[in-house]
Structures are given as C-alpha cells and as structure tokens.
C-alpha cells in the first residue's frame, strides 16, 4: 500500500526519528544460521527428531484443517478476494494484525536479552501506528529500514533450553508443539485486542475470522503447493514446522554466541578442549556450540548434531575430542550447571 506524506512533514519526522532509528537499527542478521547448515553429513547421522505420540489424533485435526481450507476458507476467499481484489489491501490488513501484536514481540525480545531488537519493535510500532495509519502500511521498513521480525514466547522458552515436547496439530491453529502451545497461551495475555475488546466477544470473533481468512487468501497458494508436492502432507507440514521454528531459535543462539565470542577474543591463550562428560552431549545449544568452536579452533573437525530425548532437545558434538585433565573436566562441569 502506498502511503505518501507531504514533504515538510516527512522531512521533519525523518529528522526527528533518524537519530533514534540509527541507534536502534539492528545489525543485518542472517535469517538462517549458516553454521548449523555446514554440519550436514548427507543425513548419515540424522536421528528421528520428532516426538509425536499423538499422531493419530493430530492427523484427524490436520485433516480437519485441510477440509476447512479447501471447503470453507478457499471458497469464501474467492468472494473475499473479489471484494478486496487488490493484494496490497489484503497485505495491509495482515500488516495491521502484525502491528497490533507489537507488545508480544517487545516483551519476548526483552526476555531474550535482545535489547536493540526490542527497541526496534517499539520504534516500528510507533512509526507504523502514526505514519502507517494504524499499521496498515510499513513506513518503518520502507522509510527507516527497520525490518519486520517475528518473536513469540515459544521462541523465548526454546532460547532458554526448554524442549519442544510433543508435537500437536490444533484445529484452526495448525501445527504446534507443547512448548509453543504454552507460548501461545502466554502471548494471549500480551495481545492488546484481548483487553480492548474484552466486553465485545462478537467483534473479537469477527476479527479472528477476518485474520484467518485474510491469511488464507495470502498464504493459500503456499499451502496448496505443499499438499501437491508432498508424499504425506501431514509429515511434510510437521517437518517444515520443526525446521522453521528450530532455525528461528538457533539464529538467536548463534547471534548470542557470536557476541560472546567477539568479546572474549584475544583474551585467553588457546587451551586444549576439555573432554565433556557424556561424550559431548548438551542440553544447551550455546554450550554445544562453544564446545564445537573450541574443537575446531584446535584443528579438529567437529560437527554438531541435534538429537532428542523424549521431546527434550539434546545436542551431540562429535569430532576429534582430546583427553582432558581432571582439573579441566571439573572446570567444565562447573560451567555446565
């Protein structure tokens, strides 16, 4: 959607906000953790990374959602897109729904120690609400280079090492895990609409329906090609959900790792990597990464594999582990817990 301002107003606002935004603009972060992609070994050591004991029930709900899409959302979407033919208008509605959920992202960025990104969200909310007509446009990204990002409580919990738990496919809501469901419940309390419209359940239901329908018309094609290309759409969707969510969390952890790595650089001399007890098994991705880095610094080709134990994430670092002195092992155990 095109939103224009009169030049003086635009300039004034620009001057007012440029200092602020230049402070807040995050360093361009890779959307994908490339380091993790290097560890691929043609699937040789890949393990079953999904814990889905409720598969029969989940499949029922997956099928329900599929029917909902093909029988309800898609036909209704034809009418909806006939009324709102302009894809930009539907994009604007989607942007407004994204904008109103800013508190969710601000809080979760803070919880993960991403102070800058949390500031960016505050600035984005302010700019897009005022200049973007309540969030219908995204002048924060277009004019100020403050990129849109997603953050939620499920990611925060994952960042702190909480495992995904069992896989869940909810009717209407789609793929999730026990952890992300807990996250959704928590984020509910940060959704302003749930306070503004607390006495208007009908409006709330209407807005939810609008959001679902709007999303369906914008993302429907992606879902259809998933179904068309998959051998088993349920498994494919489940895998995409896991891969996508894990990458979001890994990116945050990797950025944190880089931060700490650059601070510690040039400090201590290189020591032999201590052999971790439990053959390099970690619950904490950050720790696993540090260990891997340490081994690689020593010239050992270490790689990291994700595995899991009853829905709790585990990371195994394999490589040329060197024997460590008892003193070093003690030090490491100290760091671990």
């Amino acid at each position, binding site marked *: 959607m095109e939103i224009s301002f009169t030049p003086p107003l635009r300039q004034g606002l620009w001057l007012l906000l440029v200092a602020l935004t230049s402070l807040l603009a995050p360093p361009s972060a*890779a*959307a*994908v*953790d*490339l*380091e993790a*992609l*290097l560890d*691929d070994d*043609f*699937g*040789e050591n*890949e393990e*079953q990374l*999904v814990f889905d004991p409720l598969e029969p029930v989940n499949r029922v709900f997956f*099928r329900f959602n*599929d029917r909902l899409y*093909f029988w309800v959302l898609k036909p209704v979407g034809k009418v909806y897109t006939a009324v709102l033919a302009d894809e930009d208008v539907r994009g604007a509605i989607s942007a407004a729904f994204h904008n109103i959920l800013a508190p969710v992202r601000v809080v979760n960025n803070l919880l993960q120690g991403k102070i800058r990104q949390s500031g960016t969200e505050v600035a984005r909310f302010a700019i897009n609400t005022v200049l973007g007509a309540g969030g219908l446009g*995204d002048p924060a*990204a*277009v004019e100020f280079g403050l*990129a849109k990002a997603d953050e939620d409580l499920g990611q925060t919990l994952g960042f702190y090492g909480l495992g995904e738990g069992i896989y869940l496919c909810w009717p209407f809501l789609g793929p999730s895990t026990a952890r992300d469901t807990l996250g959704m419940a928590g984020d509910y309390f940060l959704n302003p609409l749930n306070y503004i419209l607390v006495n208007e359940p009908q409006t709330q239901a209407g807005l939810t329906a609008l959001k679902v329908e709007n999303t369906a018309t914008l993302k429907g094609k992606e879902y*259809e*090609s998933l*179904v*068309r*290309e*998959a*051998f*088993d*759409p349920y*498994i*494919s969707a*489940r*895998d*995409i959900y896991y*891969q*996508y969510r*894990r*990458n*979001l969390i890994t*990116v945050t952890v990797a950025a944190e790792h880089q931060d700490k790595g650059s601070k510690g650089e040039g400090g201590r001399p290189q020591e032999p990597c201590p052999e971790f007890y439990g053959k390099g098994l970690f619950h904490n991705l950050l720790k696993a990464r540090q260990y891997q880095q340490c081994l*690689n610094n020593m010239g050992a*080709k270490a790689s990291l594999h994700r595995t899991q134990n009853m829905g709790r994430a585990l990371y195994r670092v394999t490589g040329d582990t060197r024997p460590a002195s008892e003193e070093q092992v003690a030090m490491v155990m100290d760091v671990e817990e």
Partner: protein
Amino acid sequence: MRPNKKIQGLQFFLLALFLLWQGTVAWATDPQAAMQETVENVLEVLTDPALAGEAHWQERRERVSQEVAKRFNFTKMAQSALARAWHDRSAAEQEKFVTLFKELLKDAYVDRLKTYSDGNYKVVFDKVLVRGTRAVVSSLVIQQEQKISAAYKMYQEGDDWFVYDVVVEGVSLVSNYRSQFGNIIQKDGYEELVRRLEKKIAEPRNSENPNEELS
C-alpha cells in the same frame, strides 16, 4: 654481479604464469562465484526476450533444467534424502532412485521458477561459509518489500563446487523429503516408496484436486 637478463625474464614469466594459474584456481574453487554463475545463467534463460511467452515455456524449462543439472548433484541429493537407508540398496536400485528423484524435483521446482520470468526481483548473495570441502552459500531473493532467504549447501569435488541441498527460510528441501521417505520406508517398505515416487511423477501438473493422499 648482475643476473642474466634471460633468466630474469624467464623467472618473471614463470611467476606471472604461476599467479595467473593461482588466480584461475581460486576462481574455480570459490563456491559463491560458482553459485552466482548458475543463478545468473538461469535468470538469463528465464528473462530472455527471445524465449518469452507461454509458447516457449517448454524450451525455457529444458534449458533451465540443463543449467541446474550442471551445478546440482542429484546423486548426492538422493543419497541424502534416503540417509542411512541408501546403504541398504543395491547399485542398480540406487541408480533408479536417483533418476526418479531427479525427475520429481524437476517437476516440482522448475515450474515454480515460471513466476520469476517477469524479472521483478533481485538476487543478492550476502554470505558464504567454507569449512574444508563443505560450504554454505547464502542469498536473498528480494521482491518488493519481501525478502526470502535461500541458502545452498555445497561440497567440493575436484576443483568445482556442487549443490546438494537448498534451504529456504531455514527449511531444508532434502530434509523435508528425508522425513517423508523415512516414514514411508518404515511403514510400508522401500518398494512402496518407489511406487509412490513413480505415481507422483506420472501425476498431471497443476491438478485442481491435489488432495488425493488425504482423502
């Protein structure tokens, strides 16, 4: 004592040759440059005005497939998609599987590139990571305000680099197939997987009811 002019000239010549040789090798072994070349070639075919329009789509499709086949190693992709189950297959079975898998990918993805024929986008290569004979080349496909990240997992063979997986927004294509294939093999066996692959390839494209598997 002044060194012989002829020997000096020869030394210079050898040095120049060495530098030149180093230069070309460095170019050939750069995974990002290799990937960039392939993407540029593909985009050139897609946006070629001489081949524009629906009538030439089959020809464009063929030429895009050729470009992709030069850079992508479908044997490695297929092996990776089967993971450990790959080793349980005979050489003939492996060969057949690779042929089917290649056909499947061609069907599913070359047609998707059609939307890029309008040239209304930009591809930017932003990062590259190399560790030994493995590399990850990351790029962004920018279309208006939308940015989609696409990373290529590559490995070195001889002097050149080849792609064995594509990762879009953190979702690996090969891993996604691996999860589905593993499930089918576990439940119904390898023969059933081959049957399903053949059925999928035989399916007409762009069918209105893509939903058979569910019903």
